[in-house]
């Protein structure tokens, strides 16, 4: 949604609640615990995230918890630039933790949000980020119930860092674990890889290139819910291939379950533009980050139904069957290349650095 559109009902408005004439930028005092901190919390965070658990603005939130097993996950978000095509650090901080919970088979119940703000951050930017978090949380059906704000000296942060912690409930009959991958299982992917990493690169200083590629940042709990609701126990492993890309995710699964994975390069969905950008920059899309994709390893008999379920969901339209779990080469991922050769897909060492020529 562009900023020009009106926000849907129940979402914070465009106008920053802390007028520019008052405080155009975040100051150290906003993290001091005094009047300014309270103004920031009440006028900005509470206004955007308002829900019954948050409203008392107590030291912590008290929640009603339904029966079941509890899943708990935490992640810190640092991204430069803060705003990128297809998202921003705010939506990313919600999607990332919601997805980590979803990959445990859990439906998210509540999130916390910890902000480390850098002195000098434009208040309008913070409001944009907070609004984006509120919208992402609403779309994912989860409340932000408690939080924290600190301000660090100018030059000691990158605008804003956000930590989100989430809890969720794992329904009865759902058992998701990397170690549950069994020979014969099928490997499915919910859509195109590498969109997020390439979208970020495209707006990095010194490398702006023209593209319409957008980050795939999205909350996957709906997609995963549909899959688990229909297939339950027959879904063995779920994984969102974020940092380190798909290659790292499949390697972790192979190592943890002590099985081999065999992938078909041709079957892995990849946008032409993303592929082109990776070719030019010398990056392997298998190692590029995703923020709204899910790997699902399912029992052999459930593959077709799983594929149909994924494709029926808006976030899984381009889902594909990309490989299988094998008993051979335990701990190792092999891939048949487009040209008909075979290669090993290993973990990434360090960061991918663009090559010289």
């Amino acid at each position: 949604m562009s900023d020009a559109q009106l926000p849907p009902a129940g979402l914070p408005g465009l106008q920053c609640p802390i007028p520019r004439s008052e405080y155009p930028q975040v100051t150290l005092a906003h993290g001091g615990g005094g009047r300014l901190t309270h103004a920031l919390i009440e006028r900005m965070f509470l206004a955007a995230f308002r829900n019954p658990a948050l409203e008392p603005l107590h030291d912590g939130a008290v929640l009603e918890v339904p029966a079941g097993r509890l899943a708990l996950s935490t992640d810190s978000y640092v991204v430069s630039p803060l705003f990128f095509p297809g998202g921003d650090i705010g939506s990313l901080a919600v999607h990332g933790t919601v997805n980590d919970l979803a990959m445990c088979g859990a439906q998210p119940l509540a999130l916390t949000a910890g902000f480390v703000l850098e002195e000098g951050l434009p208040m309008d930017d913070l409001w944009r980020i907070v609004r984006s978090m509120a919208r992402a949380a609403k779309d994912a059906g989860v409340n932000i119930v408690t939080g924290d704000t600190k301000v660090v000296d100018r030059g000691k942060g990158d605008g804003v860092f956000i930590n989100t912690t989430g809890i969720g409930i794992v329904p009865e009959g759902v058992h998701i674990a990397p170690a549950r991958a069994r020979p014969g299982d099928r490997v499915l992917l919910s859509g195109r890889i590498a969109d997020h990493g390439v979208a970020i690169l495209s707006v990095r200083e010194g490398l702006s290139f023209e593209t319409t590629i957008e980050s795939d940042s999205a909350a996957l709990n709906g997609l995963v819910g549909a899959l688990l609701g229909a297939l339950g126990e027959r879904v063995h492993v779920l994984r969102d291939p974020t940092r380190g890309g798909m290659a790292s995710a499949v390697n972790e699964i192979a190592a943890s379950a002590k099985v081999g994975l065999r992938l078909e390069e041709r079957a892995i969905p990849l946008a032409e533009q993303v592929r082109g950008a990776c070719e030019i920059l010398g990056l392997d899309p298998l190692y590029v980050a995703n923020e709204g994709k899910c790997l699902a390893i399912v029992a052999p008999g459930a593959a077709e139904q799983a594929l149909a379920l994924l494709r029926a969901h808006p976030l899984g339209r381009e889902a594909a069957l990309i490989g299988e779990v094998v008993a051979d080469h335990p701990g190792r991922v092999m891939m048949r290349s487009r040209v008909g050769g075979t290669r090993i897909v290993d973990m990434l060492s360090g960061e991918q650095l663009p090559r010289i020529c």
Partner: protein
Amino acid sequence: MRFVDEYRDEAAARKYVELIGRTVTRPWTLMEICGGQTHTFIKSGVDRLLPASLTLVHGPGCPVCVTPLESIDRALAIAARPGVIFTSFGDMLRVPGSTTDLLGVKARGGDVRMVYSPLDAVKLAQKHPEREVVFFAVGFETTAPANAMAVWQAEKLGLGNFSILCSHVLVPPAMEAILGSPASRVQGFLAAGHVCAVMGYREYEPIAARHRVPIVVTGFEPLDLLQGVYLAVRALEEGRAGVENQYARVVTREGNRPAQALMKQVFEVCDRAWRGIGVIPASGYALRPAYARFDAGKRFDVGAITAQESPLCIAGQIMQGLRKPHDCPAFGALCTPEHPLGAPMVSSEGACAAYHQYARTP
């Protein structure tokens, strides 16, 4: 994707593999010059489709691998100085010097920045007149035109705060050195397509004639390589020497003349030490005296550099085609991408990195 998929077509690849199989009647050893070609072979796995009697050895065409340790240590010393913005291609950041690498200098407070083009370093110098901006100008004839352009532009702009640490190398003298070595087993070359895009292939004709070897100018896609191998083995089987051009969609005999003219204006040929190999006469570029003020080596006195290479690393022998990465006792054990002893283990064009990443065993 156009211009990519055509060169990764499985049916066409199979056809060339069969053709090579029918052509080869005895063992041959070919060297692909460029590390980019090595990586395509290993990553696509097409080298494994070739007849067992055909041996591929990997050449010295990895710019960061051959950059001498002294140059890297000099770069590290300059990068660590206050007031300096040290810029480099990303590939160079992890290459080990005697004690650390450029990322290590950055972690300790040095202002080390990755750029995608030397012209970005020139822009940085314009933006920060109060700082010294240094670009680490490494590479073969492929990167030399852009680096020459950066110096040329800096001069036109009258920039007093831009310089390059120049460690350029040239392919033909290295091929001569490999062919001249008594230990060499190379019988034919796949020449580096992108070097030839700049330089043309005229300069390879005397080498082919003098050493009686076929040299096939070859591209970087799996089908390019298979076609290059086919042309090379066909020439070997027929007892022909000479230069053939597989990469005709990019390379001409004369090359890119404006680029060559600019390189000639800014650089002069010099003797150059190659990491792990030693000094090869007339194998590098240095700045001409008229551009000496852009020479970071002269501008920054970093004292005497005494570089200490790991005694275990056999990178030099690997890059001359004498041994393969898994022949090295340190490979994968003492030497890994996380803790490299030599540059070929970290460069995206290094043979050791390719063998390690795609877990090649003998």
